[in-house]
């Protein structure tokens, strides 16, 4: 019955019905709980309105025996309500326990730091040159518990990837975490879910769940320093990057660019989106972003850069070479 309903709504809307399109046991547990509570609530609403409707059209008296009957009905209805609430409370607490089981020692730990208005992603390692830093894209292997360690140094954000779990706030001065175990390979959208300033609306990220081998390959690739430019045009593009304001905020490992206020661009071309998952990573979008990010995301921290056409083309070509 539930599946028919969900499928019907799917069909009606024609796209991912995210929170109910579960890709992890946590999301599944939440969805099941949700349907239980939902149907109880629908039943209660229908009953209350039905009683109201019948009561409005009936002709009745106010005699004393009716009063006693009324008292019993009201008391009974209250009792039934209390019972239903108890059922929902119990189900809720049980699900809460199930969803919040601790990660355990074999979990993959990833550090996510929220910034105004992008996500810094870091895969820690005890060996310093095996640390991976990227932005706005989370890669994880399928069927392994992942524990995201959440932090922020500016304002409160909230990480929300509906397909895999509920949300968790990132709070300055406090450490929070979000644990999940993805069961399905695919790409899932996430976003910030706590108002954090001008570009809260466009602070998204992607979660990419991969087969374990692909994931390891990706990690290895991300560990490499940036690709050296293979042609003069790309070299020129790198020069534009290093001699312009870009290096004050961005890092490209393997070059002199070591800014920490903006996303790490070392492997920018390996990501499918830019601007915190709000634009596809194509030449046109990238060029537009570089030239006038304010027009695309007004109020964000990236200033406009009026470059000459050759400079812009070479810069974009260089950035697109950073696989």
């Amino acid at each position: 019955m539930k599946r028919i309903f969900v499928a019907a709504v799917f069909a009606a809307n024609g796209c991912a019905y995210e929170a109910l399109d579960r890709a992890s046991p946590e999301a599944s547990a939440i969805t099941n709980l949700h349907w239980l509570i939902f149907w109880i609530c629908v039943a209660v609403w229908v009953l209350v309105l039905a009683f109201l409707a019948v009561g409005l059209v009936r002709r009745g008296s106010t005699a004393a025996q009716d009063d006693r009957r009324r008292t019993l009905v009201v008391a009974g209805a209250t009792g039934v309500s209390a019972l239903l609430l108890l059922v929902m409370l119990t189900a809720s607490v049980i699900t809460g326990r199930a969803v919040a089981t601790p990660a355990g020692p074999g979990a993959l730990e990833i550090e996510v730091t929220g910034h105004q208005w992008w996500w810094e992603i870091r895969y820690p390692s005890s060996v310093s040159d095996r640390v991976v830093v990227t932005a706005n894209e989370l890669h994880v292997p399928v069927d392994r518990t992942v524990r995201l360690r959440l932090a922020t140094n500016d304002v409160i954000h909230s990480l929300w990837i509906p397909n895999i779990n509920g949300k968790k706030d990132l709070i300055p001065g406090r450490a929070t975490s979000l644990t999940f175990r993805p069961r399905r390979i695919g790409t899932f959208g996430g976003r910030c879910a706590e108002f954090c300033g001008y570009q809260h609306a466009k602070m998204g990220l992607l979660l990419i769940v991969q087969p374990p081998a692909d994931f390891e390959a990706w990690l290895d690739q991300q560990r490499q320093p940036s690709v050296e430019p293979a042609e003069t045009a790309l070299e020129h593009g790198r020069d534009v990057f290093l001699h312009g304001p870009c290096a004050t905020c961005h890092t490209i490992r393997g070059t002199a660019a070591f800014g920490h206020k903006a996303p790490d661009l070392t492997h920018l071309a390996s990501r499918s989106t830019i601007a915190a998952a709000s634009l596809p990573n194509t030449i046109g979008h990238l060029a537009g972003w570089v030239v006038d990010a304010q027009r695309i995301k007004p109020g964000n921290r990236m200033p406009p850069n009026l470059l000459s056409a050759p400079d812009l083309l070479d810069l974009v070509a260089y950035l697109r070479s950073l696989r």
Partner: protein
Amino acid sequence: MSSPAEKAPREKAPGDSAEERERAELARTWRKRSGKLGLLFSVDHKTIGKRYIITAFVFFLVGGLEAAAMRLQLARPESRFLNPDIYAQVFTMHGTTMMFFFAVPVMLGIGLYLVPLMVGTRNVPFPRLNAVGYWFYLMGGVLLYGTFVMNRGPDAGWFAYVPLSGNAYSAGHGMDAWVQIINFTEVSALIVAASLIVTVFKQRAPGMSLNRIPLFVWAILITMIMVIFAMPAVIFAAGSLNSDRSLGTHFFNPAEGGDALLWQHAFWFFGHPEVYIIFLPALGMVSSIISASTRRPIFGYTAMVLALVATAFLGFGLWVHHMFATGLPQMGEAFFTAASMMIAIPTGVQIFCWIATLWGSRPRWDVPFLFVLGFFFTFVIGGLTGVMLASVPVDLQLHDTFFVVAHFHYVLIGGAVFPLFGGVYHWFPKITGRMLGRTLGIWNFALLFVGFNLTFFPMHELGFHGMPRRVYTYSPDRGWNGLNLAASLGAALMAVAVALFLINVFRSLRRGARAGENPWNAETLEWATSSPPPAYNFVRIPVVASRSPLWDREGGGFVTGMPTDKRLLLVTHALDAEPSHREEVPGPSVNPFLISLTMGLGLIGSIFWLWWAVIGAFVSIPVAFLWYWTEEEP
């Protein structure tokens, strides 16, 4: 039209000319200051109540325009109607206006107007202080909109979470102004609360023991007690934010031992009771309208009162449900889930008792009753989505999405604004002496009902689809387009409904059918005097012997022996309303206005230079002295 008002024969005084003399003397004793300047002197609870109501409705309209702007912006993806800076100011202003400047003050105003009438007294106990409350409220509104029209309005949401609302991320005077308006509105609410609590406990008509108080008065009394306990929390929160911003304290700075969550705890400890402060008076209105429409007293009086008390009490134990995503310990979360679900029980009791009252009653289908039916339909949905959100795992998916926007508009508009409109249609005849038009009223209701559901029902689904709150735009490929467009169309319909309401009000003020004392044949004391009531409310203070004094006059009567040459209130004992003594209250004065100016300007000035607050306080001392000096002047 309503059935012809049944007028029970009036008590015959020994010689009508004696009564005329009494009226004349009362009118002279309780007269107000004349002229335009006299407006600054008013201390009549009905005048001040009307001011609160009208001012609140003006803010409702402005808040509605802000909502319209948001819906225009969100009607299409990637719209450029409002940029993110203005959008953030608009949604902050919408929330702040609706919560602080419309919803609470309108309930305060209706309570101020009706409660003294319903308990059978002539004015509130501290009439001049009451005037201060209104001026403070007005000044707060002027301050808020002053900053907004200069494009320097607050922009961190009505809930102003730190650190976003702190100095580092919201420099400039917008947030400073926001913090100050909290002071203005909360002082105003506390003043009304103190006035009405004392009115209800000490000024009831003889014979109106506690178990004979109208349910509306119970609702207001309990609400006012909630105000007393909830406002201090927002005083602490806003005061701490103010001092963090302007004095360099570290309440919310984790680097020096502070905590961002302290703000959330303090704010929501106030914020959750705040919505019940808005909601409980509406429940009182529903009781009044249902009993008038069904010509029956509400079933289960004691259960209804206990349900109101339980709701108020439990309302203070829910605040953490706004913080489920912040990573609090699970045991704590379970407690707040239980409390948040439990509060549905007393509300349920009320709904069941109302249905029991209606059962078989063949009610009169007047416009106020239609709004009550709209309340049933919409509020129950809102309450049930609240139960859904009370569950932590479900909340973690739906928190901060449009599902929550749908939920709270269903409970606030469904649960408070629909009864409010019903209340306006119900009491407009008493306040103005004219009936509101019925046909226009039916259209008003129908368009508001359809428009409201069209606007907010799709938002439930938008939440499931993953659309977060407080976003100035969205991308076209998310699948949110159709639902947003539907919501915006619904908003347009709501705007038309409100326009019809305004037309109805203005037309009826001029040409509405004249209302007698009791056009609805209702049961409570406000209907026992003329429409509108004279300045002194009643020629003779009534004596009651039943819960429905106008239906059940056996044992009732009136008070004699009260001098009419001074502004005297009859004070009765708190529990059984036996007469205790007579107490004089002051008459019109400009000092309340003056002291509101000195203190208010001091607070406003402190936004720019801290010492203005101290100067304001010092300058207020001679004004306070002048006030005390002139207390006896009639």
